[in-house]
């Protein structure tokens, strides 16, 4: 990624940005997020198929904001998150430099957030066939069995909140799960608390999730929580039309149409 290293070095040198958020070498064979502030450190930047963490999560963190204006290495999932964050007024065009990475691992530069939207318009979110099948299989179970399935899947959750920490869209500084006046969610990692936590997490991402799977990849127990968000993504497109982040559309749950259709209200 010579082009990426050259570009970031020149951005830091000209002081156009003060920090570069990118991928670097981690422990063993893994990669990790790195934050570069010096021109000579740009050599550490790498990009390959191991770089799956969603770096957009750092854009809203106070300790990263303190470093100054960032340039961010952004493969497709990160670009989608950036667009969604922009549509929620969490970032503005002049608050960052986006260094896009195409699926062919080429550096793509963007002049504006609208350019990102145009670029992504040809790369719509598509739910993979294997996940679609997994969701359908679950939905095909009788209701009691389905409940049992999820209670069992969620059994190993010990509420580390890695799913929340990894998600670029979980940026609230005070999360409902930490609220104890009232205690919305039972704190212990028992079946009830786990169920309530995962329902709340999925609902708060309804119509906002950009399907980056960061939550699932972060989960130390491998709980298929991404099936919840994927299923909701499908529900959004079935009920309200298009999905995917956009600068021009309101979020699904903060907007409405008087003729929204449903079949269950008497």
């Amino acid at each position, binding site marked *: 990624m010579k082009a990426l290293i050259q570009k970031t070095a020149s951005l830091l040198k000209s002081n156009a940005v003060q920090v570069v958020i990118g991928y670097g070498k981690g422990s063993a064979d893994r990669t990790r997020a790195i934050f570069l502030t010096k021109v000579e450190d740009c050599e550490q930047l790498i990009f390959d198929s191991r770089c799956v963490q969603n770096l957009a999560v750092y854009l809203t963190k106070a300790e990263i904001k303190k470093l100054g204006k960032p340039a961010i290495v952004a493969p497709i999932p990160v670009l989608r998150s950036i667009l969604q964050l922009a549509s929620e007024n969490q970032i503005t065009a002049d608050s960052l430099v986006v260094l896009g990475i195409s699926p062919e691992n080429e550096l793509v530069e963007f002049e504006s957030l609208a350019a990102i939207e145009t670029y992504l318009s040809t790369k719509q979110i598509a739910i993979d066939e294997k996940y679609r099948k997994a*969701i359908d299989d*679950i*939905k095909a*179970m009788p*209701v*009691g*069995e*389905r*409940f*049992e*399935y*999820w*209670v069992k899947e969620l059994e190993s959750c010990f509420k580390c909140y890695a799913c929340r920490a990894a998600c670029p869209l979980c940026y609230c500084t005070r999360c*409902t799960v930490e609220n104890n006046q009232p205690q*919305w*969610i*039972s704190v*212990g990692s*028992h*079946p*009830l*608390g786990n*169920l*309530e936590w995962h*329902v*709340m997490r*999925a*609902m708060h991402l*309804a*119509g906002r999730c950009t399907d980056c799977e960061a939550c699932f990849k972060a989960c130390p127990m491998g709980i298929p929580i991404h*099936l*919840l968000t994927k*299923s*909701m993504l499908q*529900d*959004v497109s079935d*009920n*309200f039309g298009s999905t995917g982040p956009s600068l021009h559309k309101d979020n*699904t*749950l*903060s*907007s*409405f*149409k*008087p003729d*929204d259709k*449903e079949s*269950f*209200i*008497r």
Partner: protein
Amino acid sequence: MTEFEPKIVAFVCNWCTYAGADLTGTSRIKYAQNVKIIRFPCTGRIDFMLLLKAFGEGADGIIVSGCHPNDCHYTSGNFHARRRWIMFRGLLDLLGIDVRRIQYSWVSAAEGAKWADVVNTTVTAIRELGPYADYAKVASYLEKEENV
């Protein structure tokens, strides 16, 4: 053995369904006593977590009711609520939480008879489904005092 009497919690909006339920009473229409009505400013205020809390505390069924579309006291609260219910219902269904136990309805302040009908049919339906044992099992954790 006595017949199972379901516990039903009704989350209703102040302006339509609550007034409608009031009309049911003043019209002297009799309906099932299983329902406990909780009054909200608007259906838009009814947080989805409250429904889970109701099940967690032992409700066998839930009614959520408010103003008809275009009748909202705050113009669009029920439109927002409707979208949220559509998404919430889909999620609960995937998780295996029994969506048949949640009845959504629009009941206006003039529909006292409809309110009685909504409650009666819901009570009948839940009575047939029986106690919500699946959720109660999950929520039984709370029964031990030291866990609360």
